[in-house]
């Protein structure tokens, strides 16, 4: 896997994005506190802004109303609408230009990886998340 996937796509944003808006989708609620602490410097310096959704359904609602997240980090394994379904919805129906979607899963198996890639995921990460690696990836996008 490349460190910076679809890098051509990211350059499109570079010109007009000042503060990166990231939507994190995970059914584990403490993910919010964790991200806010892990990225506290970036949040404080207003380099990044985070929004959180606790299900695929909530994430779609958020995107339909605000359409401002340029990057979506989504867990695959969620009850109800899975991360993969969310990905399909985003890539099929949503938004011009489409947001960057990184999938996260606890099961780093080939099935999930292939499905995610087929549906147009921009990156695929496995849990536990390496935050230093994630930070590098996000900064590269900025």
């Amino acid at each position, binding site marked *: 896997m490349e460190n910076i996937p679809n890098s051509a796509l990211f350059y499109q944003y570079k010109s007009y994005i000042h503060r990166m808006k990231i939507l994190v989708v995970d059914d*584990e609620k*403490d993910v919010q*506190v*964790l991200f806010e*602490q*892990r990225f*506290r410097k970036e949040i404080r310096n207003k380099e990044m802004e985070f929004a959180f959704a606790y299900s695929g359904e909530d994430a779609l609602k958020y995107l339909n109303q605000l359409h401002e997240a340029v990057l979506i980090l989504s867990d695959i*394994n969620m*009850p*109800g*609408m*899975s991360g993969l*379904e969310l990905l399909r919805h985003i890539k099929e129906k949503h938004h011009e230009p489409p947001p960057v979607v990184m999938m996260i899963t*606890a*099961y780093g*198996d080939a*099935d*999930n990886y292939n*499905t995610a890639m087929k549906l147009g995921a921009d990156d695929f990460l496995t*849990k*536990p*998340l390496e*935050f230093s690696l994630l930070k590098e990836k996000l900064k590269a996008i900025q």
Partner: protein
Amino acid sequence: MNQNLQNISQLIEQSEALSAEQKKSIADWIKEVDKSITITEFKLDRTEKVKKTTSILLEETIQELELKRKAVEESNTALQRSLEDLKAAQAQLIQAEKMASLGELTAGIAHEIQNPLNFVNNFSEVSNELIDEMKEQLEKGNTEDAKAIANEVKMSLEKINHHGKRADGIVKSMLQHSRTSSNKKEPTDINALADEYLRLAYHGMRAKDKVFNAAIKSDYDESIGLVKIISQDIGRVILNLITNAFYAVMEKKKIHPEGYEPTVTVSTKKLGNKIEVRVRDNGTGIPQKALDKIFQPFFTTKPTGQGTGLGLSLSYDIVTKGHGGELKVETRDGEYTEFSIILSV
């Protein structure tokens, strides 16, 4: 003729006090008596012979009976042994069923432990970074900033503690699940029990079939409070019902890949002095002809090797015999199944 009677006859013959006619009559009577005696003696002799034969027969019968008694005793011992063997086999089957249901959960348990562990690791790393920052701020004399960071550290530590306990709880309940039942009824938070098994079963199913997904819904009646149950046993019943529910929706999804939203709902309710736990799925339902057999041991509709056929029969025993409750089922073929556990508080 009998000697005594002969003596009497002679005496009477010699007597002068009696007339010839009287003597004749007496002689006739004596003959009659003699005849009676002869007959009685003959009969006695015959009876004696019969008695002997009978006693021989009786002796033989007694010997025969004794042989039979011994045989019965032996077969009784054999039966007792088979009964013990059967009981041991049953206990083994129950244990096997427990381990099988635990096996179903393994992936779910691993996932459920991995998640809190990730949080523990992440929040401890964050705490470390925060402490460094706090030191920097203190060196600069920025006490206010340092205090703010201290609060962040405190929150991180609380999260570490929370998720550590969460992992601990999962390991404990897994161990409890595999252990033999203590048969002790203890006050239990049945909502927490149901929710724990719902999560474990969900992740277990996800791990088994990574493409499949189902919506899980829960509706817990918070007014239930603590209920006196053998939590490990009722936990197994709930787990069994939830696992079955997931199986039913998975099967239906195979038949209807499009336009079907698999849903499993677990709810609890207080009904006067009773409580009810319901597990509902919108899966394949149970056909009428199978419905009569679902609580029978070894009845299964799963392919060979996939189900022991003991889940529901054990569940039924746990609820009815173990807790004096009811296990009811409502279903419509191809549409839904709903199991209700009803327990007296």
